[in-house]
């Protein structure tokens, strides 16, 4: 901006030209809807595409891995290895654990559980978070105050401790309670975000217009305002998925999570710990990398979505 006064007439003519070019471009763009525009922006985000590619591999692994390598995770190999298991050369691709189970199958099955936990947790958290945030932001007043003070309280407790305590007392090593715990503890941040979005959106003209033609409160809140708030919600939803995957690994790693027979990334890590001293690096390494890669990929994806779904983004 600071070089503005230095501009010569010649360059300003060029700007004028590009201005009209930009105007033509705008005209051409009008035939694209919001989603097509978003997709166009998303495609340009290189890291986001990398994230999608990694996630695609993970989903493929989760769905088809156990079919392509038909290996029952509980079926032990007959020639039992030493306590360190087979290394990746003796038993491709990822070696085996101390019981002779393929680490690859552990990772593939773990992918199934992690993806399941991540998406279901996200669905629970998004449903509650959007409902609470929308109601608080749309109606305001004492409802808002009550809901937000509750959110403040939940957010003031150290999250990891509460997850551990809840998993210890309500989890019982089962999948469904664990998902419920993660989901029921993951929504407050999102509720706060949705509330803030509603506070500004409800003052906009399109809400007034809808009200003027007699649209009801509920319909305004969820059919008119919600679609306008969808961008940030989608971004936090992806982050909740990543967080839930880490949470499962963390809770299972400390032995408060899924029972030992369930094959999850966290369980694989937990069992590998005691044998690290014998040098079985492949046993914790591959599940650990699976977690890290998935989380990084989801973060990339979220980053791309943030840019793509921002209505104020520059073309």
């Amino acid at each position, binding site marked *: 901006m600071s070089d503005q006064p230095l501009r010569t007439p010649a360059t300003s003519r060029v700007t004028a030209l590009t201005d009209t070019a930009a105007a033509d471009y705008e005209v051409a763009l009008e035939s694209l809807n919001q989603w097509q525009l978003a997709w166009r922006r998303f495609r340009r985000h290189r890291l986001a595409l990398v994230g999608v590619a990694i996630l695609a591999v993970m989903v493929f692994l989760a769905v088809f891995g156990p079919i392509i390598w038909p290996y029952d995770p509980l079926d032990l190999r007959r020639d039992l290895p030493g306590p360190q298991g087979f290394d990746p050369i003796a038993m491709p691709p990822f070696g085996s654990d101390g019981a002779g189970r393929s680490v690859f199958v552990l990772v593939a099955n773990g992918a199934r559980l992690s993806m399941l936990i991540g998406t279901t947790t996200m669905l629970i958290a998004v449903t509650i978070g959007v409902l609470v945030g929308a109601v608080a932001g749309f109606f305001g007043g004492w409802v808002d105050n009550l809901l937000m003070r509750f959110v403040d309280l939940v957010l003031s*407790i*150290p999250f990891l401790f509460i997850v551990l*305590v809840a998993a210890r007392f309500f989890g019982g090593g089962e999948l469904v309670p664990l998902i419920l715990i993660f989901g029921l503890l993951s929504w407050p941040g999102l509720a706060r975000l949705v509330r803030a979005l509603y506070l500004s959106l409800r003052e906009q003209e399109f809400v007034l217009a809808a009200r003027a033609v007699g649209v009801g409160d509920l319909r305004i809140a969820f059919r008119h305002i919600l679609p306008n708030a969808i961008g940030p919600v989608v971004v936090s939803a992806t982050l909740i998925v990543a967080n839930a995957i880490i949470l499962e690994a963390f809770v299972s*790693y400390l032995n408060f999570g899924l029972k030992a027979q369930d094959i999850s990334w966290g369980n694989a890590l937990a069992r590998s710990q005691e044998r690290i001293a014998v040098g079985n690096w492949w046993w914790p390494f591959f599940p650990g990398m699976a977690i*890290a890669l998935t989380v990084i990929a989801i973060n990339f994806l979220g980053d791309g979505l943030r840019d793509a779904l921002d209505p104020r983004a520059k073309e």
Partner: protein
Amino acid sequence: MIRYIVRRLLGAIPVLFGLSIVLFAFVHLLPGDPCSAILGQHRTEEACARLRANLGLDDPLTVQYLRYLGSLLRGDLGASVINNKPFLDEFLVRFPGTIELTLGALVFAVGLGIPLGRLAARHAQSWLDGVVTAISLFGISIPVFVLGLVLVVVFGVGLGWLPTQGRIDARLRFESVTNFMLIDTLLAGRPDLFVDAVRHLILPSIALGSIPLAIITRITRASVIEVSHEDYVRTARAKGLTERRVDERHIMRNAWLPVTTVIGLQVGGLLAGAVLTETVFVWNGVGRWVVDAIGNRDLTIVQSTILVFALIFLVVNLIVDIGYAFLNPRIRYA
């Protein structure tokens, strides 16, 4: 200044008060029979009734809460349900370990994060910037315990460079007095043991410090870039100051502010992350103790630890805010 500190301390009271209510409610929502937990096999109806009366469990919840609050105000944080040892005694034995680990992680994160952030800012948009950004993205994404396990496998088992378990070599049979290993070994006049304790500290600090490192790097980079565009930086260059002097006196002094805020905010995450790091590295601190307490359903310990951690977090943030006034003379707390 003093009025500001007093006001901030008073402001912390409702927060802690609210937290005490939440914790009390949470503990009472948990399923489980205190009789079975305490009496175990010796549980009879008669003994149970006596125990409930002794513990005041038959009183209305409000009475129970007020009694809990009363003991908190007297500084009584309760005792372990399992072995009846007072919370505070047990906590203070283990807390130095956690402080040492947390400080180690902070030293690592700040010591590496600020130079990295400055480097990335100076070469913004170059390949160097890209590498630093990639490292910090990785640091934020990789869970603490996964990184910890990888470090153990690579540097502990694989290369054998550093110890991976405990705070000091157990074979040395060193008796700690204050439970601060680094201080004790020096006080005992044993530099060899001091070196051993430092070596034990390195890998856990890196694991725990990875996320703060990433955050501090990114904030430093953003802050330095922002300040570099200020008019007074251009003026400083225009009047012919050396690049180094501009960097130290004009850019960094102003870039420090957001960085200090973020460093203060990391403390909460570090205390929580210590739970995992201590488990991975068999580190004798509060984190491992709390995990064991949760496993044993010893809720007094969990409850009181959360309260103490919240208090620490509030105090650290107060210190950071006061630190602003010294870093930035434009801020004066009235």
